[in-house]
């Protein structure tokens, strides 16, 4: 590769851009899970909260969907790993002339749109059902049965590809040797070939489960009475979104990162072990554990990740967002009030301008209490239960009710410390006379 700094810079910039497109959405979505705003958004930030997680765990639909997903995933894994392995074994032995046709047929489900697979499964088994004259409630019309079959159609192809890759390195001489030594075919398969394929079985199972778990296109036609988690999610997202979905996404992302790191640590360890010529078990374990960290940055990251997760969990036990939230609500209410006031003021000024065409239209500067009912004593009492340190007092001496004074925003910070109650600055008239039409004349009189 060229070492020109310009090209290197270009590559770096492109990589950063690319990976922010790849990871940015996930990070932003995770952040929304902690914002108390009832619409998932990053900005404006309200209050840090864990409430969406508790809402998530209290959601029975999601729990039920999760259960269905696991049931369907379990059967799909068994069926597709078995069929995928058989498909791969047959592919290695099939009559050469049939080979490319056969390969095209078993690879096709990957390319066929999932919607088509779902529909064809549904239609076919419905017809089989009516062919045998079975009622609509028979197992052939069962959501789990249909979904498992529909998903297995294409997931088996994925598994088949995994097994084909592994089988390419298999020496058939091993099976032959076992047969010569008197093993039956089943024994030879069980003792020789299957152990060799075990790693592929593992990765195919994981792949199959993940594919089944996140499948939507096929499942949406076949789930009947057993909505999977993905179906539930799609219904939720389409009907109206709330941050508990973000919370779920955050958990899934964490799990994914966790397993990816575990996988990385294990393969690193295997590599290290291979390099040292020692069996995997000899590296790490027991007292030598810290040594894993030495050559294994992934292990360090994993340890940090677990620590962060535990820390967050502990923090979630003690953290209570209610005071901050109250403060925020108060602040928001006040801001809204101010905005209303500002609009009213503007309208009043307009009116004033109409009635007095003089240079002194900014007269309301002298007015003391244009603050509106935001500080109505009654309101204060309602929003300030007991000893909570939230005292949304402010300096309503400013004109326009302080609506245009940015300093005021800081004064009513959510920590409530800055905002000291200033009873002396309380407006004399709670309504600031803004709504009183007779005031118009008064103000006008003063300014004149």
């Amino acid at each position: 590769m060229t070492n020109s700094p310009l090209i290197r810079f270009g590559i770096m910039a492109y990589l950063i851009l690319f990976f922010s497109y790849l990871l940015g959405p996930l990070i932003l979505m995770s952040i929304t899970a902690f914002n108390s705003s009832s619409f998932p958004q990053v900005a404006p930030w309200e209050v840090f909260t864990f409430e969406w997680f508790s809402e998530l765990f209290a959601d029975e639909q999601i729990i039920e969907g999760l259960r269905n997903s696991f049931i369907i995933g379990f059967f799909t894994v068994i069926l597709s790993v078995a069929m995928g392995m058989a498909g791969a074994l047959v592919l290695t032995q099939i009559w050469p002339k049939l080979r490319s046709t056969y390969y095209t047929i078993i690879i096709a489900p990957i390319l066929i749109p999932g919607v088509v697979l779902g529909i064809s499964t549904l239609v076919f088994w419905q017809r089989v059902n009516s062919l045998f004259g079975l009622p609509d409630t028979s197992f052939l019309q069962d959501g789990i049965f249909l979904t498992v079959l529909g998903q297995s159609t294409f997931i088996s192809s994925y598994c088949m590809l995994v097994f084909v890759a592994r089988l390419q390195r298999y020496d058939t001489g091993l099976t032959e040797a076992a047969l010569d030594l008197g093993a039956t075919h089943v024994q030879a398969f069980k003792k020789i070939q299957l152990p060799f394929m075990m790693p592929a079985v593992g990765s195919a199972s994981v792949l199959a489960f993940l594919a089944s778990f996140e499948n939507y296109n096929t499942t949406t036609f076949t789930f009947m009475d057993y909505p999977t988690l993905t179906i539930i999610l799609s219904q939720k997202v389409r009907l109206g979104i709330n941050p508990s979905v973000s919370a779920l996404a955050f958990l899934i992302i964490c799990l994914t990162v966790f397993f990816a790191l575990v996988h990385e640590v294990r393969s690193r360890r295997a590599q290290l072990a291979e390099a040292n010529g020692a069996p995997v078990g000899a590296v790490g374990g027991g007292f030598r554990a810290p040594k894993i960290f030495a050559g294994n940055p992934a292990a360090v990251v994993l340890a940090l990740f677990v620590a962060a997760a535990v820390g967050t969990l502990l923090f979630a036990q003690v953290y209570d967002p209610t005071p901050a939230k109250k403060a925020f609500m108060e602040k928001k209410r006040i801001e809204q009030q101010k905005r209303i006031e500002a609009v009213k003021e503007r309208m009043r000024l307009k009116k004033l301008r109409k009635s007095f065409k003089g240079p002194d239209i900014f007269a309301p500067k002298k007015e003391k209490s244009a603050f509106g009912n935001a500080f109505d004593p009654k309101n204060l009492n309602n929003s300030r239960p007991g000893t909570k340190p939230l005292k949304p007092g402010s300096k309503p001496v400013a004109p326009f009710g302080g609506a245009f004074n940015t300093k005021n925003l800081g004064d009513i910070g959510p920590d409530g410390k800055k905002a000291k109650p200033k009873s002396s600055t309380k407006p004399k008239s709670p309504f600031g006379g803004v709504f009183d039409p007779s005031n118009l004349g008064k103000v006008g009189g003063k300014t004149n």
Partner: protein
Amino acid sequence: MNGFMKDYFRTNGLAMGWTLILLVGFWVVFLIILPQIAMLDFSFRPNLPPPEMGGPKDIHTLDNYKYLIYGAQGSESTYNIVDLSVFVRTLIAAVFVTIFDLVLCYPIAYYLGQSKGGGTLRVLVLLLIIPYWINEILRAFAFKIIFGDSGVINEVLMFFHLVDSPIDFIKMNVALYAGLGYAYILLMIFPMYNVIESLDRNQIEAARDMGASWAMIHRRIVIPFAKPGISSGCTMVFMLSAGALAAPQILGGPSSLWFTQRVYQWFNMNGNWTQGSAYAIVLLVTCIIIVLSVMKLFKVNMGDIGK
């Protein structure tokens, strides 16, 4: 054939041989071939209530396909403009998404394939895979958060006063294309990466020594070499984005439908399965024709797909 079967059972034994045949047979016949045939057959039938199925009215007809082209009988326009335009737009958009992914991923695949391996490469590959493990609904949801009216982009734009009111990215389909392109990045990168990785670096060195420009190296060496990977990636991205359902449902604008959504509507809202089957068949056949003709154009074999 007979000799082949004898050979087959000699190498596998009876029990193993039959198990394999049964498993593969079940998969190929009952999961792949018969359902497709059943759907094809179903698409030629009128929509009847269950008791009348198999009765005298249950005959083969082209009505469902006619409906897609000409619309309902007695309607004002000659052609079914709504559905046909949805169909064409879906295909064009799928092509667009494919090209977008190809352009976006080629440099990355080249960089990954030609880098010398080691820690950075592993981390990058890990980062590539992680988003792919996240549910597709959730990925679409993430894009809704970003492109929504009060989404991140609009908030940023408004914060810097670049726009006064939020831009409706959903209606402009920006969110949909970004989401679809995002969903299939990995399927585009890995086939290309696998091929480019096996390209001998000396070839590039030699070309450079002989004075080939950077563009020339890619046009004459890397791209011809990576053709199987490129076509494999493009095929998968095109098929999957044309057949996508979740992203259009979540990110699609109210006025723009995806063809799969029409299929979905026939099944789940209108209860007209035969019509839905006909639409699904049209989608499937068109996609296959497009893919096969593109593969023929670039002289790539079916066997290269899925590597």
